[in-house]
């Protein structure tokens, strides 16, 4: 077997992607089904001079990666539902202070301790609105190991581009399943390095004054520019302010920098979408079953297509509206009570043709499940 072909778990594919992207600091806390990410990184990071630390909880893990990011490192943490809940406070801090970081949530069944070893996609809306206050967020997902790798690299690139935390929403099936991963060559995928200020020593550096293109060049802690970072609303120096103009300006900036770039951030994969009468919309491991349905029904003349979402937030409204115009039935396939279904209904012109095919019992939704639900919708009986 070639050296660059591996047979690995999805969690390992995430590790490979993160290291490829330049990860050099990881803080985490053990939790099923994400633990392998921490285990592998504790092994791999120091080999490359990077650092791994197991913190006392997920709260501390999230805080530690923000601290390390400020010293110029590419940082990540990984967890699952209960830990993701604990990270919400510091996730909001990273949004407010515009610190690049990557948070992996390998989803398991919830609420609460739920189903530690079983699959679910129940944290989609938590990723969007889990932390308090108005904000925008980037969340990516993937259904196979090659894409886990690619989306992990993408997460690091987006975190640097928009100076924001990026959430990777994987799930237990993708995280634990083993399949082939082809490691890309060095330089095969472009990597974005941190944008650092060119302001020289002695000249006023404004850490929170966006450039014309909206980007904020950073200065590493320990460097020549000393500035304040706070989770309070702050002015261009990073000083706390409750001036209404400053408050509104900052909140608009935090939201606009992401939402105005929705189409640029949107990643998806399309299978037979153009002439589809039935369009399946799915993501993560459920998209594997949805793809199976498409590949199985197409040869039999059924015009079924699949739109696999890889960017969940900001939600690609334009893309969804466009692809849902011609199909007679849109079937959202997910493992929750319809978290993406609701956003699809809001995006399309005729929401009454949008249906849900779900499974919420900790088992992976199967192609047969999807087929049966589709037959019921089509009035063909099971």
């Amino acid at each position: 077997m070639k050296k660059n072909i591996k047979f690995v778990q999805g969690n390992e594919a995430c590790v490979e992607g993160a290291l490829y992207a330049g990860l050099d600091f990881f803080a985490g806390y053990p939790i099923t089904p994400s633990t392998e990410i921490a285990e592998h990184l504790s092994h791999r990071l120091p080999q490359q001079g990077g650092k791994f630390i197991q913190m006392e909880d997920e709260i501390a893990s999230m805080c530690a990666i923000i601290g390390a990011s400020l010293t110029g490192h590419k940082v990540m943490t990984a967890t699952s539902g209960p830990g993701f809940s604990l990270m919400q406070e510091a996730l909001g801090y990273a949004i407010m202070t515009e610190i690049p970081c990557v948070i992996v949530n390998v989803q398991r069944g919830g609420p609460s301790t739920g189903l530690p070893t079983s699959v679910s996609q129940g944290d989609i809306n938590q990723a969007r609105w889990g932390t308090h206050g108005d904000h925008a967020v980037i969340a990516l997902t993937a259904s196979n190991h090659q894409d886990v790798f690619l989306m992990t690299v993408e997460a690091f690139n987006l975190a640097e581009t928009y100076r924001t935390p990026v959430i990777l929403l994987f799930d237990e099936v993708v995280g634990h399943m083993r399949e082939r991963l082809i490691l890309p060559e060095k330089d095969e995928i472009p990597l974005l390095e941190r944008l650092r200020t060119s302001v020289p020593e002695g000249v006023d550096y404004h850490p929170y004054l966006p450039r014309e293109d909206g980007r904020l060049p950073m200065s590493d802690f320990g460097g020549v520019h000393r500035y304040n970072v706070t989770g309070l609303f702050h002015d261009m120096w990073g000083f706390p302010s409750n001036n209404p103009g400053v408050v509104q300006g900052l909140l608009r900036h935090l939201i606009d920098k992401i939402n105005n770039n929705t189409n640029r951030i949107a990643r998806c994969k399309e299978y037979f979408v153009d002439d589809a009468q039935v369009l399946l919309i799915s993501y993560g491991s459920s998209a594997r079953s949805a793809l199976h349905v498409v590949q199985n029904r197409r040869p039999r003349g059924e015009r079924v297509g699949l739109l696999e979402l890889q960017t969940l937030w900001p939600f690609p409204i334009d893309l969804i509206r466009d692809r849902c115009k011609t199909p007679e039935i849109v079937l959202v396939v997910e493992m929750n009570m319809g978290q993406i279904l609701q956003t699809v209904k809001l995006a399309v012109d005729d929401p009454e043709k949008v249906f849900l095919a779900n499974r919420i019992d900790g088992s992976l939704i199967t192609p047969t499940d999807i087929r049966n639900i589709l037959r019921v919708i089509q009035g063909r009986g099971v």
Partner: protein
Amino acid sequence: MPVKDYIRERFFPHMWCPGCGHGIVMNALIRAIEDLGLSKNEIVMVSGIGCSSRISGYLDFHTLHTLHGRALAFATGVKMGLPGLNIIVPMGDGDALAIGGNHFIHAARRNIEMTAIIMNNRIYGMTGGQYSPLSGYGTLATTAPYTNIDYDFDVVELSIAAGATFVARATTYHVQQMIDVLKKAILHEGFSVVEILSQCPTYFGRKNKMGSAVEMMAYYRDHTTPLGSKAKKENPDLIERGIFVQKERPEYCREYDKIIERAKTKGK
């Protein structure tokens, strides 16, 4: 360097009440740093939430004003990210030991090099005078109108038990001692804890009839004693001041450097 060169005038006036002890702590801290001749670029001040935590904003270092109780967790990331930096973490008693208690004992256990300053005014001042884990049994607070039935921690004993390798206590009355202790704490290669008794005349003082700020400082003068003094033997209720622990144990970041070496050799 004059004291004013360490402060950010843009940030002033500060938000502390008249008579608050925290300004004395800030002054002593600046003088300690001045005496040590540390470069401002090498100092990162990480704080949480509360009156004490506002120190970070007022000083001209790299400053990170974080979440309630989480300062030490953020500081751990900063220190591991750039071990050459001097990390100073000013915290309040509630910040460090209630909401941040878990981070506190684990940072102490790891012996990661940073200076944790616990400004103990025995009250939540920012929110208006609720009891803290250091208020103590029998005290009054806005959330303990019938007296407090919570017992307090002894910060020094807690720190020692958790593994801190430098533990000291000072008060806002004993400024010279505070400066001296802070200098040693900053130089210490490991996790240092300095508890500073700092008066809150506005809330703790008023609720508990402690008198003015001056009277509260006189209380520190009369109710504390140098560590190991004869007075303590005669009056065990006196609170001891000084350096309780100063010992060597491998520091976390230096230990991690060894991990990197081990991993690189093993990986080959």
